[in-house]
């Protein structure tokens, strides 16, 4: 008898803003850091559900003439507050703001997101500051078949813990800035841990799970893996054990305990 554990994907990515000619661009989403990379998209009106993910800017420096009126009207992602005042005040950001971006002004090309700046679009644009941070995560309620809506490899996997090999911390810092995410209504520092398993396919390349969790939870993730590998869950007749299934909208014990906000995977195609 073996313990089988279910990992459901909800990709999460965070990076420090770029500079100069790349100021309005994010770092690239890749298979390694995001699992399934969203398809290219030219900025146009679209819902987050249809695209399957949502994008935020965490403000690192207060700036005037930064945020489009439509973005301000959405309210801060964390506090929910809609900034009051005249047009100038609404376009001004302060440190710690978390602004939701709209696809009207965001395009995606080979995993790189590009947002129109405020000067070009005072309604939906956003002028990035080099100290800002991007947060990109899958949308619960996504209807994007390619990312999560229709089951396919790398969207979820149930693994035999007898094939677990190792857990390894991943550095989430970009330059000297630690990665961030949104957990329980607050911006928090995040860390990531990569779990390795013998390939489901049976080839020489291991399958990996990338977990995004609250800062400093590396060791706790590893302890969890030990418990899942050596525990007696298989004797309870309940089937597999759900470690994380964020897209379901429910919260598992481990998501709550470890502050898990992201999970993506690289499973070799069979």
């Amino acid at each position: 008898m073996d313990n089988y554990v279910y990992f459901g994907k909800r990709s999460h990515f965070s990076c420090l803003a770029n500079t100069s000619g790349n100021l309005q661009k994010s770092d690239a989403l890749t298979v390694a850091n995001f699992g399934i990379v969203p398809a290219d998209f030219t900025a146009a009106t679209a819902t987050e559900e249809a695209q399957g993910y949502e994008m935020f800017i965490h403000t690192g420096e207060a700036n005037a003439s930064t945020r489009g009126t439509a973005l301000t009207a959405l309210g801060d992602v964390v506090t929910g507050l809609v900034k009051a005042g005249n047009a100038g005040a609404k376009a001004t950001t302060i440190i710690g703001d978390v602004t939701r971006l709209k696809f009207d002004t965001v395009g995606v090309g080979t995993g790189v997101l590009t947002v129109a700046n405020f000067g070009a679009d005072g309604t939906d644009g956003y002028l990035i500051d080099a100290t800002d941070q991007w947060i990109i995560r899958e949308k619960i309620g996504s209807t994007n078949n390619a990312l999560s809506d229709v089951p396919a490899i790398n969207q979820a996997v149930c693994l035999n813990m007898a094939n677990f090999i190792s857990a390894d911390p991943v550095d989430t810092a970009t330059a000297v800035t630690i990665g961030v995410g949104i957990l329980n209504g607050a911006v928090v520092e995040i860390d990531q841990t990569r779990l390795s398993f013998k390939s489901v396919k049976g080839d020489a390349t291991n399958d990996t799970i990338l977990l995004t969790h609250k800062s400093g939870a590396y060791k706790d993730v590893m302890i969890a893996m030990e418990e899942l590998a050596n525990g007696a869950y298989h004797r309870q007749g309940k089937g597999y054990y759900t470690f994380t299934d964020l897209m379901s909208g429910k919260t598992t014990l481990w998501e709550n305990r470890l502050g898990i906000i992201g999970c993506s995977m690289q499973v070799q195609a069979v």
Partner: protein
Amino acid sequence: MNQNKNFLYSANGDDAISATMEALMFPATAITGMFGASLTTTNVSIQATTGANDNNHQMLITHASGKNKEVMNAVTKLANSAGPFTVISAFPVGGPELFPINNLDGSILVTNIAITA
């Protein structure tokens, strides 16, 4: 020596089982992983009986739409049952194909299991 292993058995194709992969019996611990392949199919990987370090066998289960999680759960329950010879699907001579896996969850409605080497 009694190893108390649980072995799983699955048959598909026709009732005159004779060809490679028309039926497969394997230790439950040989299942390496499972994932939804589409809304109506779930893939179960099984360590290759050839001993090769690649190309595990694949068991593709066809089921009711959207029941991937439930199917994976049912397979896990079968794998962790007392055994020692647990039938997932069978094809009695002269009879229709049977799917005892459906007894674990009435909603999954498994209608086919195809095994590939």
